[in-house]
């Protein structure tokens, strides 16, 4: 047990459920506490769950192309709710079509995300990052 709690879910009107189930399983196998909100999750549900479970990070998935619209304002909602520096991580097929990833990443960072992954990046690739989170967030608080 790493003692690290992460909230996961697929944002907006997106129903792509497979990646979500796989991420859930993989995170648990790796020792994280997983709070899985499933698909079609609203921003409010993400924030609420993070407060209730005292989460160390929120992992947002978006596959269907409307991720940019759906994620807009999530950072602000977190702050309003007092989740000041909670790491926000986004992954999946975040935008419509095949776009330059650096630009997509920049747009999401500007929206207040702390880490953004390109299409198909397996969740395993951010385990290291997640494991260092408590240190990071303690440093911040």
């Amino acid at each position, binding site marked *: 047990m790493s003692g690290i709690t992460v909230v996961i879910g697929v944002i907006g009107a997106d129903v*792509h459920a*497979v990646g979500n189930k796989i991420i859930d399983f993989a995170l648990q196998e790796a020792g994280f506490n997983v709070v899985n909100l499933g698909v079609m999750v609203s921003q409010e549900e993400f924030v609420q769950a993070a407060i209730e479970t005292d989460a160390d990070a929120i992992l947002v998935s978006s596959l269907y192309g*409307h991720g940019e619209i759906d994620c807009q304002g999530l950072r602000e909602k977190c702050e309003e709710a007092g989740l000041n520096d909670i790491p926000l991580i986004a992954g999946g097929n975040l935008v419509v*079509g095949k776009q330059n990833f650096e630009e997509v990443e920049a747009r999401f960072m500007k929206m207040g995300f702390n880490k953004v992954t390109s299409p198909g990046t397996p969740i395993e690739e951010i385990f290291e990052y997640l494991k260092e989170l408590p240190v990071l967030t303690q440093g911040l608080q």
Partner: protein
Amino acid sequence: MKIKNQKLSNDTFFSEREEVLQQWPTGKEVDLDDAVDHQKKIPLTRRFGEVLARGVEEQRTLIQPRAGVALTGEHIKLLQFLESQGEADLLPTTVDSYTRLNRYNEAENGIEKSKETGRSMLNGFPIVNYGVEVCRNVTSALKKPVQVRHGTPDARLLTEISIAGGFTSFEGGGISYNIPYSKDHSIEETLLNWQYTDRLVGWYEEAGISINREPFGPLTGTLIPPFISNSVAVIETLLAATQGVKDITVGYGQCGNLIQDVSAIRALTKVTREYLDKFGFHDVRITTVFHQWMGGFPQDEAKAFGVISWGAAAAALAKASKVIVKTPHEAMGVPTKEANAAGLRATKQVISMLKDQDLREIPAVLTESEIIAEETRCILAKVEELGKGDYAVGTVAAFEAGVIDIPFAPSRYNMGKVFPARDNLGAVRLLQMGNLPLTAELKEFHRSKLEERAKQEKRPVSFQMVIDDVYAIGKGFLVGRPR
């Protein structure tokens, strides 16, 4: 329970219809007599069912893309491009996500924004907002027949406008456009919605206009054992036939093992025919659609071409009536029209080369196909039992009881206890069977197939196999072997 599998009476249908047409202003434009007149003028070369039938006659698997953008002019250009540069035999109009969720205000906003920016801000063509006339402009600008493809739990108004707008085929069904596409719609609710769609199509049939209907075969597109999707296809066919639909294309999403794929299409045709006949629907025509690999795709375009071409080959060797084609951009996002046309041309080449080859009658296929048929009959028999002979009532009960249970589905109304995994040859079998009503013998068959794999891999049968298999294709393999 409100639902019953019986033909909606004119009273019920037309009073519901009044309400439906008021869901959005364009509903008022729909005039059934005018729609029949318009449909009657559509030449046979642009009628979906006709073109399909001709393909079947010539033993030629037809090819069809997915495609849709927000603006009419652009949408027409896109489809014309796929017709000329993609050599598509059949065309789609893929509907945007807002329309699928009946959020017409947001779709309107999307149209406005798209007009302003000149770029498509919607992931499909918003049929309802545009209304009848615009749809007629689209469908008549093309040489090939056009089908509406979507993923809409409540598609009643969409069906009205689509048919009046000159589309000659309509995808979806009360199960297949709910369980994989929704979280909160009850099965009963969506079966009711789709009775309406089917009844409307039935009404047109009676007026001499045949509209092709296509249940969505692949469901979640991920490791669905053929008998599960075949069972859903047969049920949706029976429900549609009850409402008077006469032309149905049943579908299946490629699993990747050639023998299993050919067998699945063979069993699908056979069992659908069997059940239609059982209930007296002898005059309902059946064709089949094979979906190229519907799960996660490789990122690399050359590898994607490999996956696309292999799907084309399996479709041709199974002699599917048509194949739905993926694009080399699949893993990345909505494709450009060039990428879409390239997927089509690769498919056309393979289909044409394999036109005269057929694996449907080889012994391995006969055996596997008999197993799939038997499994399907287990499910259908239980549904019939639960519904006391009524397939609509039985379907609602079957989902509650986990008698139908679709792997990886997002819906709350799906039990979610079933998990599939591949056997040693890559065929999709069941690892966790949940409450599926298979015979002991069939359950043993699945178990032994996975044991065979486990032995080969020197590890026990476990959930890790499921995970490994979901990841496998992205890494280039069917079977997710341990390293």
